[in-house]
């Protein structure tokens, strides 16, 4: 059997929160009302389908006294006690009075270790000893976790009492625990039983590797989003009427600008969702404010194209093909006027491309026009744009990566002064990033720069943001 840990205790002590934290499960029911968990649920960590350990979330003790009375009435020697507990569960399976006790004792008599949870911010009371005794009767290895739900501090008195019944007593803040604390707690579990060490160590290693992988994936997502936003443009055909009236042109420009802003916002949102889903926070709500984009930061250009060729390119190619044809005519004429023929050909070809282009541009093939006058808004040229975008992504990543799955309130991403987000970046990395941004603003398709960016973002994600 794999190491199994039953998380038990009174209702509302944060049992489910601890399981949610360790199992990174945002769907476990956690609520301020006691009795939220109704049945025992197993959360098994497996590596490639190989189970390593399991956590069992259980409902809390409701009638510890009655259970203890029942047990004491039936066992005389200490060595009989575990069997009597098993008998209790067996005989009360269908007794609604002891539903919760059977749920929580069941996994323990099946061989689970005990993680007994109390709230160290509330005073200790001797009535807790009843359930501690019941747990002691099971004879299973056990550890006590002092969770910290409120503001009070009664940890010392809890410790003194818990030391009587538990071989290991630890303070563990279910909602505040970060990744390192979680791993430390897992390692502590292994101390309960010699045979549990190896699988727990494997699990810890796998979780550590998985964590690195997540950071790498998140960095790739963030880099992707940055590249997409840096190169994002909105274009629309500019009809002759639009082009001749300043108002209409401005209106079209405004529409395109709006579309560009939306596009960037959507792309950013998409990347945020992806990063959250990498960290198993799919349903985490965010209060997010879109980045400010000023119209003056955005590059606007009017151009003309046919088959994706600009007018200059088209004319040049027209002239050249004219020249080639002219060369043919020269030959026809006996080679007497090589330059003249080519020259005339080039002129005719170039002029044809210039004047004929408009006509050709209006031609539609398979419903698509071949080209024509275009208005393009974007890409964003403001030098601080990539820094703001990256800074926002960085803060979000940090919040998500450190976010505990027992926390259920929405995450707030209000980020104060956005231009100072990147203040904590080491100089060297900042310089590297600046170089990459420059390359990407010049050419968003630059594959090497993209790869470099992903690596640099990964480095950045390992750095603590300032403030």
């Amino acid at each position, binding site marked *: 059997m794999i190491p199994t840990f039953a998380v038990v205790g*009174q209702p*509302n002590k944060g049992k489910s929160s601890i399981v949610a934290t360790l199992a990174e*499960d945002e*769907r*476990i*029911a956690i*609520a*301020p009302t*006691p*009795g*939220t968990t109704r049945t025992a*649920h197993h*959360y098994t*960590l*497996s*590596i490639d389908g190989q189970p390593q350990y399991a956590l069992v979330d259980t409902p*809390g003790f*409701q*009638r*510890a006294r009655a259970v203890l009375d029942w047990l004491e009435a039936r066992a005389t020697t200490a060595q009989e006690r575990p069997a009597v507990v098993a008998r209790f569960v067996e005989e009360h399976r269908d007794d609604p009075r002891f539903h919760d006790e059977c749920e929580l004792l069941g996994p323990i008599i099946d061989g689970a270790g005990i993680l007994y949870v109390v709230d160290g911010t*509330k005073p200790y*009371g*001797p*009535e807790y000893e009843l359930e501690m005794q019941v747990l002691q009767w099971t004879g299973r290895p056990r550890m006590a976790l002092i969770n910290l739900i409120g503001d*009070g501090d009664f940890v010392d008195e809890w410790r003194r009492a818990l030391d009587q019944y538990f071989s290991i007593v630890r303070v563990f803040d279910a909602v505040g625990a970060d990744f390192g604390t979680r791993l430390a707690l897992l390692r502590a579990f292994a101390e309960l039983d010699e045979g549990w060490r190896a699988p727990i160590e494997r699990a810890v290693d*796998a979780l550590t*590797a*998985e964590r690195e*992988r997540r950071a790498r*994936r998140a960095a*790739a997502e963030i880099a*992707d989003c940055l590249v997409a936003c840096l190169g994002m443009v909105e274009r629309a055909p500019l009809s002759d009427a639009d082009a001749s009236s300043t108002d209409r042109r401005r209106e079209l420009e405004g529409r395109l600008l709006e579309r560009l802003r939306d596009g960037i916002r959507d792309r950013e949102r998409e990347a945020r969702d*992806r990063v959250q*889903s990498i960290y*198993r926070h*799919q349903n985490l709500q965010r209060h997010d404010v879109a980045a400010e984009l000023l119209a003056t930061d955005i590059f606007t250009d009017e151009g003309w194209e046919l*088959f*994706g*060729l600009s007018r200059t*390119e*088209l004319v*040049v*190619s027209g002239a*050249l093909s004219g020249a*080639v044809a002219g060369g*043919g005519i*020269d*030959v*026809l004429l*006996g*080679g*007497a006027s090589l330059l003249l023929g080519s020259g005339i050909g080039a002129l005719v070809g170039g002029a044809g491309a210039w004047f004929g282009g408009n006509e050709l541009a209006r031609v539609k093939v*398979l419903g698509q026009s071949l080209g024509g006058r275009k208005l393009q808004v974007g890409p964003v040229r403001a030098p601080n744009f990539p820094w703001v975008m990256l800074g926002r992504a960085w803060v979000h990543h940090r919040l998500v990566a450190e976010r505990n799955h027992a926390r259920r309130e929405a995450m707030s991403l209000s980020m104060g002064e956005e231009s100072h987000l990147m203040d904590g970046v080491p100089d060297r990395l900042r310089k590297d990033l600046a170089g990459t941004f420059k390359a990407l603003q010049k*050419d968003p*398709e*630059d*594959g*090497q*720069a*993209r790869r470099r960016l992903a690596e640099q973002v990964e480095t950045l994600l390992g750095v603590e943001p300032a403030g």
Partner: protein
Amino acid sequence: MLARIVDIRRWLREDRRTPYADRVARDRAIGRELRPAGDLGRVLAWWSALADAAPGPERPTGRTLGHRVETGRRVAGVGLGVLGLLVGAAVAGVAFGYEGRYPVNLFTLLGVLVGLPTLMLLFTLLVLPGRLPGLKSLQTVAAGVSPGRWAGAWLDRLLGAELFAPGLLGGAANAFSRWQLVVFSQWLALGFFAGALAIALLLVTFTDLAFGWSTTLNVDAGLVQALVSTLAAPWASWLPSAAPDPALVEASRFFRLDEAAIPQERVARLGEWWPFVLMTVLVYGALPRALLLLVGLWRLRRATRSLLLDDPEVTALLDRLDAPLVALGGGVDEGSGYPESSGLPAPSEALEAEGLVMLVWNAAATPAAARAWLATTLGVEPEASGEVGILQGEAERRDALVELRQSVAGGVRRVVVVTKGWEPPLLEFMDFLGQVRETLGAEATVTVVPLDVAGRSVRAAERDVWARALSRARDPKLYVIDATGEAPA
């Protein structure tokens, strides 16, 4: 291969919408079964192992985009070749045009058949190295006049695949489109030379051609001779007939004003130029193109592989294939089983001292503190009070309650139970309330008073928890004190 690569890339792009956990589980399940192979092999094997039922976008079937791209590319290649063939034939037909009056001018002929194509070749080479500083406009022109680029732009438009044209002068990621452009251009060029050579051979076979050279410049035959023998050097040793001797060069000069033209005995030799012309076109025109085509095809293959392997989505996929799947279990969506009822009301009338009994449960407060709270908050003094708790046995508790009842002469009318407001209301407390009701009488009102650690009334949220929990008792005379501790007036 291109077809699959295009399809895989597109599919992976759509797959980004699939939840991350599902993607990881799906791909690792396949990845564990894959035999060790190179990255490309593993991705392709993954693609064929991917089941239709697996989570993710629908797999493309039938004539997928990839197939259309591959066909389109083939059609474009063949089309360019045929176009080249026709142009080559036409140009050669004109260039070899010889009406018998003057011989075909070798300068013009080779200029058209070798010179111009070489110029185009240089243009193509200019596009290859990616962005060259200072040469941007020239590169733009070179790319603009490239028939390969025109073909690529057409294909992209037709297929709706951004594959052949984007960012032509861009960085490494565009290696594919650049090499494709090179290959396209070479098909056209090879077609051109094939057409030209075919026409030349036809004309040589079925007509009598005469070649000569003529120039306005004051060039002596020696220079031309040097030029010709340099050109013919590669084949002079094993194909002497294609290497004109000085006498032939000397004999082939003509002037168009020279009415007498070329003396008859010289004319007989002028046809001897043709092997040289063919070899020059073949070696200096077609051969570089053929070589460039080979290099292009080879590099295109590599670029096609990197098209796949450099795709960030594919890198992520490889990661998913190789990384052990860490599953954390769970995923049960558990609704709360807790009653959503509004909970028990506060007592409807002010508590009076008459027949009032106070019970302190589980040492929620010292009796003195509890009395003080009753006196200050409710202004009443209980007639009797006692401490009970779960540490006592059930019988012990009953005895205590009975004793209390007997100590109230006029009978118990009201009971106040002081509890630890910071603890959850447990079922054993509900059991105790049942015992109270049983022992102290069905008519008495029972008011639960949860206090906080400092002995004050609990806040509304905690009161609410108690009120809801105790509503499960369905006892009409059971109340939870109002959060302020005051009964409504």
